[in-house]
Protein backbone atom coordinates (compact mmCIF):
# COMPACT_ATOMS: atom_id res chain seq x y z
CA UNK A 1 0.00 0.00 0.00
CA UNK A 2 1.22 3.48 -0.84
CA UNK A 3 1.49 6.44 1.49
CA UNK A 4 0.16 9.76 0.30
CA UNK A 5 3.67 11.21 0.12
CA UNK A 6 4.61 8.66 -2.54
CA UNK A 7 1.89 9.63 -4.99
CA UNK A 8 2.78 11.56 -8.07
CA UNK A 9 0.99 14.65 -6.79
CA UNK A 10 0.72 14.25 -3.00
CA UNK A 11 -0.68 17.75 -2.42
CA UNK A 12 -3.50 17.21 -4.88
CA UNK A 13 -4.28 13.84 -3.27
CA UNK A 14 -4.36 15.44 0.19
CA UNK A 15 -6.67 18.20 -0.88
CA UNK A 16 -9.11 15.80 -2.58
CA UNK A 17 -9.05 13.60 0.54
CA UNK A 18 -9.85 16.65 2.69
CA UNK A 19 -12.74 17.55 0.38
CA UNK A 20 -14.04 13.96 0.53
CA UNK A 21 -13.94 14.10 4.33
CA UNK A 22 -15.90 17.38 4.35
CA UNK A 23 -18.64 16.08 2.03
CA UNK A 24 -18.81 12.75 3.87
CA UNK A 25 -19.30 14.73 7.11
CA UNK A 26 -21.99 16.88 5.57
CA UNK A 27 -23.75 13.67 4.51
CA UNK A 28 -23.49 12.32 8.04
CA UNK A 29 -21.66 9.22 6.75
CA UNK A 30 -20.15 7.05 9.49
CA UNK A 31 -18.61 3.60 9.70
CA UNK A 32 -21.98 2.36 11.01
CA UNK A 33 -23.98 4.16 8.33
CA UNK A 34 -21.64 4.44 5.38
CA UNK A 35 -22.18 5.69 1.86
CA UNK A 36 -21.89 2.67 -0.45
CA UNK A 37 -20.01 3.33 -3.67
CA UNK A 38 -19.59 0.49 -6.14
CA UNK A 39 -16.55 0.47 -8.38
CA UNK A 40 -17.72 -1.58 -11.33
CA UNK A 41 -14.37 -2.37 -12.92
CA UNK A 42 -11.97 -5.02 -11.61
CA UNK A 43 -9.07 -2.78 -12.63
CA UNK A 44 -10.42 -0.18 -10.21
CA UNK A 45 -10.76 -2.78 -7.45
CA UNK A 46 -7.13 -3.71 -7.96
CA UNK A 47 -6.07 -0.04 -7.91
CA UNK A 48 -8.06 0.73 -4.76
CA UNK A 49 -6.23 -2.03 -2.88
CA UNK A 50 -2.83 -1.50 -4.43
CA UNK A 51 -2.86 2.20 -3.57
CA UNK A 52 -4.64 1.67 -0.25
CA UNK A 53 -7.42 4.09 -1.20
CA UNK A 54 -9.95 2.22 0.94
CA UNK A 55 -7.79 3.11 3.96
CA UNK A 56 -7.24 6.73 2.90
CA UNK A 57 -10.89 7.69 2.58
CA UNK A 58 -12.93 8.33 5.76
CA UNK A 59 -14.57 5.30 7.40
CA UNK A 60 -17.99 6.57 6.29
CA UNK A 61 -17.20 5.56 2.73
CA UNK A 62 -17.45 1.94 1.79
CA UNK A 63 -16.27 0.57 -1.53
CA UNK A 64 -18.45 -2.22 -2.86
CA UNK A 65 -16.57 -4.28 -5.42
CA UNK A 66 -18.57 -4.84 -8.57
CA UNK A 67 -18.76 -7.67 -11.09
CA UNK A 68 -16.31 -6.07 -13.51
CA UNK A 69 -13.72 -8.82 -13.86
CA UNK A 70 -14.59 -10.79 -17.01
CA UNK A 71 -12.49 -13.79 -16.01
CA UNK A 72 -14.08 -13.95 -12.55
CA UNK A 73 -17.62 -14.07 -13.91
CA UNK A 74 -16.88 -16.76 -16.48
CA UNK A 75 -19.12 -19.70 -15.51
CA UNK A 76 -17.61 -23.09 -14.85
CA UNK A 77 -19.65 -24.56 -17.71
CA UNK A 78 -17.92 -22.21 -20.16
CA UNK A 79 -14.49 -23.12 -18.81
CA UNK A 80 -15.43 -26.79 -19.23
CA UNK A 81 -16.48 -26.12 -22.80
CA UNK A 82 -13.24 -24.29 -23.51
CA UNK A 83 -11.34 -27.32 -22.22
CA UNK A 84 -13.47 -29.66 -24.34
CA UNK A 85 -12.54 -27.61 -27.41
CA UNK A 86 -8.88 -27.49 -26.42
CA UNK A 87 -8.73 -31.26 -26.02
CA UNK A 88 -9.71 -31.93 -29.65
CA UNK A 89 -6.59 -33.21 -31.39
CA UNK A 90 -6.88 -30.90 -34.40
CA UNK A 91 -7.26 -27.78 -32.27
CA UNK A 92 -4.78 -25.12 -31.19
CA UNK A 93 -6.64 -23.32 -28.43
CA UNK A 94 -5.48 -19.76 -27.87
CA UNK A 95 -6.29 -17.64 -24.83
CA UNK A 96 -5.26 -14.64 -22.77
CA UNK A 97 -3.10 -15.78 -19.86
CA UNK A 98 -5.73 -14.61 -17.33
CA UNK A 99 -8.01 -17.49 -18.21
CA UNK A 100 -5.43 -20.26 -17.76
CA UNK A 101 -5.97 -20.78 -14.02
CA UNK A 102 -9.72 -20.35 -13.81
CA UNK A 103 -11.18 -23.56 -12.39
CA UNK A 104 -13.79 -25.44 -14.40
CA UNK A 105 -15.70 -28.35 -12.92
CA UNK A 106 -12.76 -30.71 -13.01
CA UNK A 107 -9.70 -28.79 -14.13
CA UNK A 108 -8.22 -25.60 -15.53
CA UNK A 109 -6.89 -24.86 -19.02
CA UNK A 110 -3.44 -24.96 -17.46
CA UNK A 111 -4.04 -28.52 -16.27
CA UNK A 112 -5.50 -29.50 -19.64
CA UNK A 113 -2.34 -28.21 -21.29
CA UNK A 114 -0.16 -30.18 -18.89
CA UNK A 115 -2.17 -33.26 -19.86
CA UNK A 116 -1.39 -32.74 -23.54
CA UNK A 117 -3.94 -30.27 -24.96
CA UNK A 118 -2.43 -27.69 -27.30
CA UNK A 119 -3.27 -24.54 -25.36
CA UNK A 120 -1.28 -21.42 -26.14
CA UNK A 121 -1.27 -18.07 -24.42
CA UNK A 122 -1.42 -15.08 -26.69
CA UNK A 123 -1.32 -11.35 -26.09
CA UNK A 124 -3.79 -10.45 -28.83
CA UNK A 125 -6.47 -12.12 -30.97
CA UNK A 126 -4.32 -11.02 -33.91
CA UNK A 127 -1.72 -13.53 -32.71
CA UNK A 128 -4.32 -16.28 -32.88
CA UNK A 129 -5.04 -15.23 -36.45
CA UNK A 130 -1.35 -15.39 -37.27
CA UNK A 131 -1.22 -18.91 -35.82
CA UNK A 132 -4.09 -19.89 -38.13
CA UNK A 133 -2.21 -18.52 -41.14
CA UNK A 134 0.93 -20.44 -40.17
CA UNK A 135 -0.85 -23.70 -39.37
CA UNK A 136 -3.31 -24.33 -42.21
CA UNK A 137 -3.66 -27.97 -41.19
CA UNK A 138 -4.88 -27.14 -37.67
CA UNK A 139 -8.03 -25.54 -36.28
CA UNK A 140 -7.14 -22.41 -34.32
CA UNK A 141 -9.74 -21.27 -31.77
CA UNK A 142 -9.52 -17.99 -29.88
CA UNK A 143 -11.10 -17.77 -26.43
CA UNK A 144 -12.88 -14.41 -26.75
CA UNK A 145 -13.22 -12.87 -23.30
CA UNK A 146 -13.88 -9.51 -21.82
CA UNK A 147 -16.13 -6.49 -21.72
CA UNK A 148 -16.48 -3.78 -24.35
CA UNK A 149 -12.77 -2.93 -24.10
CA UNK A 150 -11.64 -6.15 -25.74
CA UNK A 151 -14.75 -6.81 -27.87
CA UNK A 152 -13.69 -4.49 -30.73
CA UNK A 153 -10.35 -6.27 -31.06
CA UNK A 154 -12.09 -9.64 -31.41
CA UNK A 155 -14.63 -8.18 -33.83
CA UNK A 156 -11.94 -6.72 -36.08
CA UNK A 157 -10.03 -10.02 -35.92
CA UNK A 158 -13.12 -11.92 -37.16
CA UNK A 159 -13.63 -9.34 -39.93
CA UNK A 160 -9.99 -9.78 -40.96
CA UNK A 161 -10.29 -13.59 -40.97
CA UNK A 162 -13.37 -13.27 -43.19
CA UNK A 163 -11.68 -10.82 -45.53
CA UNK A 164 -8.73 -13.19 -45.89
CA UNK A 165 -10.99 -16.19 -46.38
CA UNK A 166 -9.36 -18.16 -43.55
CA UNK A 167 -11.21 -21.40 -42.91
CA UNK A 168 -9.28 -22.71 -39.91
CA UNK A 169 -9.93 -19.87 -37.48
CA UNK A 170 -12.87 -19.55 -35.11
CA UNK A 171 -13.91 -17.68 -32.00
CA UNK A 172 -15.32 -19.15 -28.79
CA UNK A 173 -17.24 -16.03 -27.84
CA UNK A 174 -17.73 -15.12 -24.20
CA UNK A 175 -17.88 -11.37 -24.54
CA UNK A 176 -20.12 -9.65 -22.04
CA UNK A 177 -21.39 -6.14 -21.53
CA UNK A 178 -21.20 -3.77 -18.56
CA UNK A 179 -24.60 -2.02 -18.38
CA UNK A 180 -26.82 -5.14 -18.07
CA UNK A 181 -25.34 -6.60 -14.86
CA UNK A 182 -25.50 -3.12 -13.31
CA UNK A 183 -29.17 -3.05 -14.11
CA UNK A 184 -29.56 -6.51 -12.55
CA UNK A 185 -27.83 -5.30 -9.37
CA UNK A 186 -29.98 -2.18 -9.23
CA UNK A 187 -33.12 -4.31 -9.61
CA UNK A 188 -32.08 -6.45 -6.65
CA UNK A 189 -33.98 -5.18 -3.59
CA UNK A 190 -31.24 -6.43 -1.26
CA UNK A 191 -28.53 -4.26 -2.76
CA UNK A 192 -27.71 -0.99 -1.06
CA UNK A 193 -25.85 1.21 -3.50
CA UNK A 194 -25.61 4.98 -3.33
CA UNK A 195 -23.52 5.63 -6.41
CA UNK A 196 -21.07 4.22 -8.93
CA UNK A 197 -17.54 4.75 -10.14
CA UNK A 198 -17.73 3.75 -13.81
CA UNK A 199 -15.11 1.86 -15.83
CA UNK A 200 -12.75 4.12 -17.79
CA UNK A 201 -11.49 1.91 -20.56
CA UNK A 202 -14.85 0.29 -21.31
CA UNK A 203 -16.27 3.79 -21.64
CA UNK A 204 -13.51 4.75 -24.05
CA UNK A 205 -15.27 2.33 -26.43
CA UNK A 206 -18.96 2.79 -25.56
CA UNK A 207 -18.94 6.41 -24.36
CA UNK A 208 -20.99 7.62 -21.40
CA UNK A 209 -24.56 7.34 -22.70
CA UNK A 210 -25.05 3.61 -22.02
CA UNK A 211 -25.06 4.59 -18.31
CA UNK A 212 -27.83 7.18 -18.68
CA UNK A 213 -30.41 4.72 -17.33
CA UNK A 214 -28.58 4.58 -13.99
CA UNK A 215 -29.17 8.28 -13.40
CA UNK A 216 -32.53 8.54 -15.18
CA UNK A 217 -34.33 5.36 -14.08
CA UNK A 218 -32.63 4.60 -10.76
CA UNK A 219 -31.66 8.12 -9.63
CA UNK A 220 -28.09 7.10 -8.79
CA UNK A 221 -24.97 9.09 -9.64
CA UNK A 222 -22.23 7.53 -11.75
CA UNK A 223 -18.83 9.01 -12.53
CA UNK A 224 -16.60 7.46 -15.22
CA UNK A 225 -13.07 7.32 -13.80
CA UNK A 226 -9.44 6.84 -14.79
CA UNK A 227 -7.03 4.48 -13.01
CA UNK A 228 -4.61 6.74 -11.21
CA UNK A 229 -5.15 7.23 -7.48
CA UNK A 230 -6.04 10.88 -8.03
CA UNK A 231 -8.59 9.94 -10.73
CA UNK A 232 -10.30 7.50 -8.42
CA UNK A 233 -10.41 9.87 -5.45
CA UNK A 234 -11.70 12.73 -7.60
CA UNK A 235 -14.41 10.44 -8.90
CA UNK A 236 -15.42 9.46 -5.37
CA UNK A 237 -15.63 13.15 -4.52
CA UNK A 238 -17.81 13.79 -7.58
CA UNK A 239 -20.18 10.95 -6.60
CA UNK A 240 -20.43 12.24 -3.02
CA UNK A 241 -21.02 15.80 -4.21
CA UNK A 242 -23.88 14.66 -6.43
CA UNK A 243 -25.45 12.84 -3.49
CA UNK A 244 -25.06 15.90 -1.27
CA UNK A 245 -26.62 18.17 -3.87
CA UNK A 246 -29.44 15.74 -4.57
CA UNK A 247 -28.33 15.18 -8.18
CA UNK A 248 -28.11 11.91 -10.12
CA UNK A 249 -26.11 12.36 -13.30
CA UNK A 250 -23.59 10.63 -15.51
CA UNK A 251 -20.34 12.56 -15.14
CA UNK A 252 -17.05 11.96 -16.89
CA UNK A 253 -13.93 12.41 -14.78
CA UNK A 254 -11.80 10.73 -17.47
CA UNK A 255 -12.80 12.98 -20.39
CA UNK A 256 -9.19 13.20 -21.50
CA UNK A 257 -9.53 9.60 -22.71
CA UNK A 258 -13.28 8.90 -22.78
CA UNK A 259 -15.26 10.63 -25.55
CA UNK A 260 -18.96 11.13 -24.81
CA UNK A 261 -19.98 9.01 -27.79
CA UNK A 262 -17.21 6.40 -27.55
CA UNK A 263 -15.05 5.12 -30.40
CA UNK A 264 -17.10 4.98 -33.63
CA UNK A 265 -14.87 2.48 -35.47
CA UNK A 266 -14.96 0.06 -32.53
CA UNK A 267 -18.71 0.37 -32.11
CA UNK A 268 -19.28 -0.26 -35.82
CA UNK A 269 -17.07 -3.37 -35.74
CA UNK A 270 -18.92 -4.74 -32.70
CA UNK A 271 -22.30 -4.11 -34.32
CA UNK A 272 -21.18 -5.76 -37.57
CA UNK A 273 -19.87 -8.98 -36.01
CA UNK A 274 -21.90 -9.52 -32.83
CA UNK A 275 -25.48 -9.59 -31.63
CA UNK A 276 -26.88 -10.00 -28.14
CA UNK A 277 -27.66 -13.42 -26.74
CA UNK A 278 -31.13 -13.55 -25.13
CA UNK A 279 -29.29 -14.19 -21.87
CA UNK A 280 -25.86 -15.22 -20.64
CA UNK A 281 -24.73 -16.94 -17.46
CA UNK A 282 -22.47 -15.06 -15.05
CA UNK A 283 -20.61 -17.03 -12.41
CA UNK A 284 -22.23 -16.23 -9.11
CA UNK A 285 -24.94 -14.05 -10.64
CA UNK A 286 -26.84 -16.53 -12.79
CA UNK A 287 -28.42 -15.77 -16.14
CA UNK A 288 -28.64 -12.07 -17.01
CA UNK A 289 -30.84 -10.93 -19.91
CA UNK A 290 -29.06 -9.52 -22.97
CA UNK A 291 -25.71 -9.43 -21.15
CA UNK A 292 -23.65 -11.56 -23.54
CA UNK A 293 -22.70 -11.38 -27.21
CA UNK A 294 -22.68 -14.03 -29.91
CA UNK A 295 -21.50 -14.06 -33.51
CA UNK A 296 -23.99 -12.97 -36.14
CA UNK A 297 -25.19 -15.44 -38.77
CA UNK A 298 -23.16 -13.82 -41.51
CA UNK A 299 -19.95 -14.72 -39.65
CA UNK A 300 -21.18 -18.13 -38.46
CA UNK A 301 -18.25 -19.87 -40.19
CA UNK A 302 -16.06 -18.27 -37.50
CA UNK A 303 -18.23 -19.30 -34.56
CA UNK A 304 -16.58 -22.14 -32.62
CA UNK A 305 -19.92 -22.97 -30.97
CA UNK A 306 -21.47 -23.62 -34.39
CA UNK A 307 -18.41 -25.27 -35.85
CA UNK A 308 -17.89 -27.75 -33.01
CA UNK A 309 -21.48 -28.05 -31.76
CA UNK A 310 -20.80 -26.81 -28.26
CA UNK A 311 -22.23 -24.20 -25.92
CA UNK A 312 -25.67 -22.69 -25.48
CA UNK A 313 -28.38 -24.96 -26.83
CA UNK A 314 -26.01 -27.90 -27.23
CA UNK A 315 -26.86 -29.69 -23.98
CA UNK A 316 -27.82 -29.35 -20.29
CA UNK A 317 -25.80 -26.65 -18.55
CA UNK A 318 -26.55 -26.76 -14.85
CA UNK A 319 -23.20 -26.63 -13.07
CA UNK A 320 -23.35 -25.81 -9.38
CA UNK A 321 -20.65 -23.86 -7.58
CA UNK A 322 -18.52 -25.82 -5.09
CA UNK A 323 -19.77 -26.07 -1.50
CA UNK A 324 -19.15 -23.16 0.78
CA UNK A 325 -17.92 -20.93 -2.02
CA UNK A 326 -19.27 -17.41 -1.75
CA UNK A 327 -18.06 -16.05 -5.08
CA UNK A 328 -21.48 -14.81 -6.10
CA UNK A 329 -22.00 -12.89 -2.89
CA UNK A 330 -18.54 -11.33 -3.10
CA UNK A 331 -19.07 -10.46 -6.74
CA UNK A 332 -22.24 -8.55 -6.00
CA UNK A 333 -20.70 -6.76 -3.04
CA UNK A 334 -22.95 -8.48 -0.48
CA UNK A 335 -19.97 -9.71 1.53
CA UNK A 336 -16.26 -8.98 1.56
CA UNK A 337 -13.79 -11.71 0.55
CA UNK A 338 -12.69 -12.26 4.16
CA UNK A 339 -16.23 -13.24 5.04
CA UNK A 340 -16.15 -16.15 2.59
CA UNK A 341 -15.73 -19.32 4.69
CA UNK A 342 -13.30 -20.66 2.09
CA UNK A 343 -10.97 -17.64 1.95
CA UNK A 344 -7.46 -18.78 2.87
CA UNK A 345 -8.76 -22.24 3.81
CA UNK A 346 -10.23 -24.16 0.89
CA UNK A 347 -9.38 -21.33 -1.48
CA UNK A 348 -5.92 -19.83 -1.99
CA UNK A 349 -4.11 -18.54 -5.09
CA UNK A 350 -2.27 -21.85 -5.34
CA UNK A 351 -5.38 -23.93 -5.11
CA UNK A 352 -8.33 -21.71 -6.01
CA UNK A 353 -11.99 -22.59 -5.69
CA UNK A 354 -13.18 -19.44 -7.40
CA UNK A 355 -11.85 -17.30 -10.21
CA UNK A 356 -11.91 -14.21 -7.97
CA UNK A 357 -8.83 -15.66 -6.26
CA UNK A 358 -6.73 -16.05 -9.41
CA UNK A 359 -7.52 -13.16 -11.73
CA UNK A 360 -5.34 -10.10 -11.14
CA UNK A 361 -8.57 -8.13 -11.08
CA UNK A 362 -10.46 -10.39 -8.70
CA UNK A 363 -11.46 -8.99 -5.32
CA UNK A 364 -10.25 -12.08 -3.41
CA UNK A 365 -6.84 -11.93 -5.12
CA UNK A 366 -6.61 -8.25 -4.19
CA UNK A 367 -7.41 -8.95 -0.53
CA UNK A 368 -4.94 -11.81 -0.48
CA UNK A 369 -2.16 -9.86 -2.14
CA UNK A 370 -2.51 -6.69 -0.13
CA UNK A 371 -2.75 -7.99 3.38
CA UNK A 372 -6.00 -9.90 3.60
CA UNK A 373 -4.17 -13.22 3.86
CA UNK A 374 -2.99 -12.39 7.35
CA UNK A 375 -6.42 -12.64 8.90
CA UNK A 376 -7.31 -16.24 8.07
CA UNK A 377 -3.77 -17.27 8.95
CA UNK A 378 -4.30 -15.68 12.36
CA UNK A 379 -7.67 -17.38 12.67
CA UNK A 380 -6.51 -20.86 11.83
Amino acid sequence: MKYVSEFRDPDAVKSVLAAIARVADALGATAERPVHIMEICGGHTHAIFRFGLDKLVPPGIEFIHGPGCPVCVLPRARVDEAIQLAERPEVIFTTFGDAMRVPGTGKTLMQARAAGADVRMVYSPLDALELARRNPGREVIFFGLGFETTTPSTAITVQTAAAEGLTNFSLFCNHITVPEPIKALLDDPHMVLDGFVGPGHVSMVIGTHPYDFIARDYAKPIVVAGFEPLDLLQSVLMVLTQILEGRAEVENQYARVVPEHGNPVSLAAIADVFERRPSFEWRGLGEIDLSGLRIRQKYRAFDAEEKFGIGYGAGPREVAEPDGCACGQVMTGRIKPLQCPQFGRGCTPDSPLGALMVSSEGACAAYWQYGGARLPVALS
Partner: protein
Amino acid sequence: MCLGIPGQIIAITDAARQMAMAEVSGVRREVSVACIARDPLSSLIGEWTLVHVGFAMAVIDAEEAARTMEALRDLGEVQEALDAMAETAAALEQVQ
Protein backbone atom coordinates in the same frame (compact mmCIF):
# COMPACT_ATOMS: atom_id res chain seq x y z
CA MET B 1 -6.42 -7.59 -20.18
CA CYS B 2 -8.88 -4.82 -19.34
CA LEU B 3 -6.44 -1.97 -18.89
CA GLY B 4 -4.76 -0.43 -21.87
CA ILE B 5 -1.06 0.29 -21.87
CA PRO B 6 0.54 3.38 -23.47
CA GLY B 7 2.47 2.71 -26.68
CA GLN B 8 4.08 5.16 -29.07
CA ILE B 9 3.54 4.60 -32.79
CA ILE B 10 6.93 4.54 -34.49
CA ALA B 11 6.14 3.29 -38.00
CA ILE B 12 3.28 2.19 -40.24
CA THR B 13 4.05 -1.41 -41.20
CA ASP B 14 1.08 -2.24 -43.45
CA ALA B 15 -1.18 0.63 -44.47
CA ALA B 16 -3.71 -1.60 -46.23
CA ARG B 17 -4.24 -3.72 -43.11
CA GLN B 18 -3.91 -0.65 -40.84
CA MET B 19 -1.02 -2.12 -38.89
CA ALA B 20 1.72 -0.14 -37.17
CA MET B 21 4.77 -0.73 -35.02
CA ALA B 22 4.38 0.55 -31.48
CA GLU B 23 6.90 0.82 -28.71
CA VAL B 24 5.53 -0.22 -25.34
CA SER B 25 7.91 0.31 -22.43
CA GLY B 26 10.94 -0.30 -24.67
CA VAL B 27 9.43 -3.35 -26.38
CA ARG B 28 8.30 -3.25 -30.01
CA ARG B 29 5.10 -4.87 -31.06
CA GLU B 30 2.93 -4.67 -34.16
CA VAL B 31 -0.51 -3.27 -33.35
CA SER B 32 -3.68 -2.54 -35.27
CA VAL B 33 -4.48 1.15 -35.66
CA ALA B 34 -7.88 0.47 -37.28
CA CYS B 35 -9.76 2.07 -34.37
CA ILE B 36 -7.79 5.33 -34.50
CA ALA B 37 -7.13 5.41 -38.26
CA ARG B 38 -6.94 8.82 -39.91
CA ASP B 39 -5.78 10.24 -43.21
CA PRO B 40 -2.90 9.97 -43.86
CA LEU B 41 -2.12 7.02 -41.61
CA SER B 42 1.48 8.19 -41.35
CA SER B 43 0.30 11.18 -39.30
CA LEU B 44 -0.03 8.72 -36.41
CA ILE B 45 3.73 8.29 -36.24
CA GLY B 46 5.02 9.77 -33.01
CA GLU B 47 1.59 9.73 -31.35
CA TRP B 48 1.02 8.08 -27.99
CA THR B 49 -1.86 5.62 -27.88
CA LEU B 50 -3.57 3.35 -25.38
CA VAL B 51 -3.01 -0.21 -26.59
CA HIS B 52 -5.46 -2.96 -25.61
CA VAL B 53 -4.64 -6.56 -26.56
CA GLY B 54 -2.79 -5.47 -29.69
CA PHE B 55 -5.16 -2.67 -30.75
CA ALA B 56 -4.48 1.05 -30.34
CA MET B 57 -7.81 2.29 -28.98
CA ALA B 58 -7.26 5.99 -28.27
CA VAL B 59 -4.73 8.70 -29.00
CA ILE B 60 -3.52 10.32 -25.78
CA ASP B 61 -1.00 13.04 -25.04
CA ALA B 62 2.51 12.40 -23.78
CA GLU B 63 1.72 13.60 -20.27
CA GLU B 64 -1.28 11.27 -20.03
CA ALA B 65 0.88 8.43 -21.35
CA ALA B 66 3.48 9.05 -18.61
CA ARG B 67 0.86 9.22 -15.84
CA THR B 68 -0.90 6.11 -17.06
CA MET B 69 2.39 4.25 -17.35
CA GLU B 70 3.26 5.09 -13.74
CA ALA B 71 -0.09 3.89 -12.43
CA LEU B 72 0.07 0.68 -14.49
CA ARG B 73 3.62 0.00 -13.38
CA ASP B 74 2.48 0.25 -9.75
CA LEU B 75 -0.34 -2.15 -10.50
CA GLY B 76 2.02 -4.67 -12.07
CA GLU B 77 0.10 -4.36 -15.34
CA VAL B 78 3.09 -3.25 -17.40
CA GLN B 79 5.02 -6.39 -16.60
CA GLU B 80 1.92 -8.47 -17.22
CA ALA B 81 1.49 -6.98 -20.70
CA LEU B 82 5.17 -7.41 -21.55
CA ASP B 83 5.09 -11.02 -20.34
CA ALA B 84 2.02 -11.67 -22.47
CA MET B 85 3.79 -10.26 -25.52
CA ALA B 86 6.75 -12.55 -24.86
CA GLU B 87 4.41 -15.54 -24.43
CA THR B 88 2.98 -14.82 -27.84
CA ALA B 89 6.35 -15.10 -29.52
CA ALA B 90 6.68 -18.55 -27.97
CA ALA B 91 3.16 -19.54 -29.04
CA LEU B 92 3.83 -18.56 -32.65
CA GLU B 93 7.10 -20.42 -32.89
CA GLN B 94 5.90 -23.66 -31.33
CA VAL B 95 5.51 -26.24 -34.12
CA GLN B 96 3.64 -29.49 -33.76
